[in-house]
């Protein structure tokens, strides 16, 4: 393992310290927690948005704390959900009297820890609602299983639910629009190389130089198929096709996100994006807005994901609304 760090067990605290040092006018770290909150939190009479999860997905989630997106992000250990007490601190810190909305990625640990925090907050009389993001089409959905994972599409939930809250939407309004995004967003990823959790010290899996893994999760958890590496066009086709098969995008307008997993150069992301646009044009799907870059990474993993969000007028307006955060501006 070769990493720039001081102590593998302190990477999260060390990172947060540097993060706050980089954006001192925008964010603050709640004392003795791993919570990054807006400098001006709580914003009175605004629904507070809290998200978070394991670390290692930077800029998610602290990078999305700011006007028009999140009020707080809770950082867990690397790839490990934060604990209920931390999430509870975040909820309390952003409660401006209009309730608090939780954006949770669909992983067993995240759901349990955030729900325990929500129970603690409810016991204190804070109104809490939540949405569970499950955009990853690589994983089969079923009411009998854990269900699909939440990956890069989560950023669209942050953006759109955050805009709704900023415009003065009620807790129920924010929940409704967040659910609309979840219903209309799908993603699919792939990886070329594994990543190494600092405290584990060795790669999460092994993969040959000429192989790629389709459907890879954002924690190095295995995907659905391993095969010989293909061209960027073929990769774009496979990922996009899988997304398009899942919900009917025909005749619709979409937002596209081509997300890098950590060590894939922007050059490669743009190559993938070019083919994604061609495919969408062939299908008569209009691209309203495109995002290419690192939005939800997996430490130093090489690979990418493709996300499509089907838009209506409300979602378009909220996607365009002002956002001022360290990692996302509009």
């Amino acid at each position, binding site marked *: 393992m070769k990493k720039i760090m001081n102590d593998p067990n302190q990477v999260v605290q060390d990172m947060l310290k540097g993060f706050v040092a980089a954006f001192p006018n925008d964010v603050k770290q709640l004392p003795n927690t791993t919570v990054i909150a807006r400098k001006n939190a709580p914003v009175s009479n605004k629904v507070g948005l809290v998200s978070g999860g*394991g670390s290692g997905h930077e800029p998610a989630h602290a990078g999305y704390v700011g006007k028009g997106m999140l009020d707080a992000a809770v950082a867990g250990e690397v790839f*490990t959900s934060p*604990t209920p007490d931390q999430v509870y601190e975040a909820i309390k810190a952003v409660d401006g009297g209009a309730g608090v909305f939780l954006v949770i990625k669909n*992983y*067993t*640990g995240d759901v349990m820890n955030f729900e325990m925090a929500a129970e603690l907050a409810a016991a204190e009389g804070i109104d809490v609602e939540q949405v569970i993001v499950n955009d990853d089409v690589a994983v089969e959905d079923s009411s009998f*299983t854990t269900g699909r994972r939440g990956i890069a599409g989560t950023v669209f939930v942050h953006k759109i639910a955050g805009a709704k809250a900023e415009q003065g939407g009620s807790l129920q309004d924010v929940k409704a629009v967040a659910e609309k995004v979840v219903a209309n967003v799908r993603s699919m990823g792939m990886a070329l190389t594994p990543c190494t959790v600092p405290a584990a010290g060795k790669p*999460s899996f092994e993969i040959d130089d000429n192989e790629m893994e389709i459907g890879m999760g954002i924690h190095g*958890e*295995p995907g659905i198929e391993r095969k010989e590496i293909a061209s960027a066009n073929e990769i774009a086709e496979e990922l996009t096709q899988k997304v398009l098969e899942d919900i009917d995008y025909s005749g619709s307008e979409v937002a596209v996100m081509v997300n890098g997993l950590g060590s894939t150069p922007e050059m490669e992301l743009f190559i993938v994006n070019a083919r994604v646009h061609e495919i969408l044009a062939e299908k008569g799907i209009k691209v309203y807005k495109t995002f290419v870059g690192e939005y939800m990474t997996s430490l130093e993993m090489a690979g990418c994901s493709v996300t499509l969000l089907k838009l209506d007028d409300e979602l378009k307006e909220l996607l365009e609304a002002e956002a001022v955060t360290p990692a996302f501006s509009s």
Partner: protein
Amino acid sequence: MELNVQSVLKWIEKLNDKIQNNKEYLTSLDQAIGDGDHGINMARGFQEVINKTTTSQYDTVSDLTKDVAMTLMSKVGGASGPLYGTAFLKLSMSVKGKDPVDHDAFTAGVQEALNGIQQRGKANEGEKTLVDVWAPVLRFLQENSEFEPGKLEETAKVAMESTKDIIAIRGRAAYLKERSKGHLDPGSVSSFYLFQSLAEVLQEGE
């Protein structure tokens, strides 16, 4: 044989030793079918538990197990924090006022702990989770009027090994479907350590 503060402290110490010694093994099991953090999280959490319990005074098993629960919930994260935290919290509530905790009171506590795990994790037996160790151990405890530590450990071991052939439908291993087969469930292995440590304490106390 009954459990008092002293024996439960010993139980937790032995469990921590096993987790620290097998940290990498647990992580490697989790890397195969999960996200590779089980050993790291359990080791961090139980080290915190030991830091807490060795510097505190307890009058009852209930107080002690409650502290274990609160420490696990606030220090572990992931899925194992809420699950083990809930288990110890329910056990603590169940054995309140029952010191020293005899076989029947402990069995009732394990029943409550298992209920808590299942509620929190929304898991049933046969889904390749720690429930697959806790449920057979509970049945064993219910079928016997004494602890019988040797058989208790054996029951937990057989149960842990049985998770190898199960296809996961809960937790992160569920994403692998058939590919999860042939691997032990990491949470079942740490639960085996928990009951193995308990059996060792009971054996020494006989």
